């Protein structure tokens, strides 16, 4: 489905990853983006595959899972509005480390990883801001994973 550019502008300006950029920077990102509608149950990307695009969720939720022999796809995290998924495309060859499936009907902004990296090269100020924000996304993911690993609600765990 083709969407109008102003839609993308609004969606990007509402995401924590791309909010508060100046208009020129947002316009540049818009030109590297498309809107992607994803019905519930549809695979967005698969673990192990190469994917150039990174995705900002505008609405809906995406379930991230990893395949474990004997256990199938184990869901690790649900991402929602404002979250960034498929970040590998921004900093590496874009090989996905998880499978992403739409948990409900989703609208996402798909940004070309290659074109965003080029923008970061030509506009280092934008590149710095985006990389800091990406680092923040990854830092939050690590923290959330650590809290999961701590298993705080296990019987006999924390006294509460």
């Amino acid at each position, binding site marked *: 489905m083709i969407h109008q550019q102003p839609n993308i502008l609004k969606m990007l300006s509402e995401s*924590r990853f791309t909010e508060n950029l100046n208009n020129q920077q947002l316009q540049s990102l818009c030109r590297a983006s498309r809107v992607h509608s994803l019905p519930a149950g549809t695979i967005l990307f698969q673990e192990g595959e190469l994917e150039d695009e990174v995705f900002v969720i505008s609405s809906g*939720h995406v*379930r991230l899972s990893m395949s474990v022999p004997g256990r199938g796809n*184990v*869901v*690790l*995290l*649900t991402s*929602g*509005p*404002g*979250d960034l998924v498929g970040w590998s495309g921004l900093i590496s060859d874009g090989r996905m480390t998880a499978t992403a499936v739409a*948990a409900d009907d989703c609208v996402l902004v798909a940004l070309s990883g290659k074109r965003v990296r080029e923008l970061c090269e030509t506009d280092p100020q934008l590149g710095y801001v985006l990389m800091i924000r990406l680092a923040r996304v990854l830092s*939050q993911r690590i*923290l*959330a994973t650590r*809290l*999961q690993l*701590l*298993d*705080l*609600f*296990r*019987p*006999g*765990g*924390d*006294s*509460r």
Partner: protein
Amino acid sequence: MSNPWQLSSARIVEKTAETPGVATYVLQLTDDSLRRRFQFRPGQFNMLYVPGLGEAAISISGNPIQEGLIPHTIREAGNVTHAISSLSTGDTLGLRGPFGSSWPTELCEDRDVILVAGGIGLAPLRPVIFDMLSNRDRYRRCTVLMGARDPSGLLYESDYEDWKRRGVDVLVTSDRPADGWHGNVGVVTTLLDRLPLPDPASALLMTCGPEVMMWYTAQTAVARGIAEESIYVSLERNMNCAIGLCGHCQFGPHFLCKDGPVFRFDKVASILRISDL
């Protein structure tokens, strides 16, 4: 509460299984006069006494304006709570209280209020939810973020739809996936991370759960623009006398039973992450 040492007899009038190892016991003081006079504020606790075993501090999980009925949601975690779990409707136990500080419902007027609970931590917050439901017009947006180890640990789950219908938004998450679970997976801080906060400076957040969870909930809230002075936590230690005399629940300069269990986050933040305090 005239004499804090005075035990009163309380009868279990209702017992409801909640989540694995957790049940709610609705108590009623057997003395008519005491029953009529008993009042508590959201977040306060009672000392429940089982003869021959001792006392346990248990938060009151009921509606503060419901006269005569005193619900406690209890997880089996030690000798006293294990003994209580074997009691049935009609059995009696001893009760002292209520004790401690309370959630700041008086500061909620015309503010967005967010409750963040983990596991059985929703029990001490439930009186606030009752207050929201009774005085919905006093609050702006009301949101409950609830996290559990797995979907079977979602406390009071059968009430969520009613709360939503009456204007309290409820978002839940499970730390780990489970067969048949199509809801959110991830820790509760991830829900707070992406919660729309149109006016964070005026938001007030109350959290109860494991201390590590509360700490990172507070960190996430501050990162989202909520002031430390608008964040409240409920702490737990081994409470014994319940009136700040015995020192069992000393926490830095505070006695949790008397000065707490509810604290403004900035008052305890500097000592909250001190190991073994």
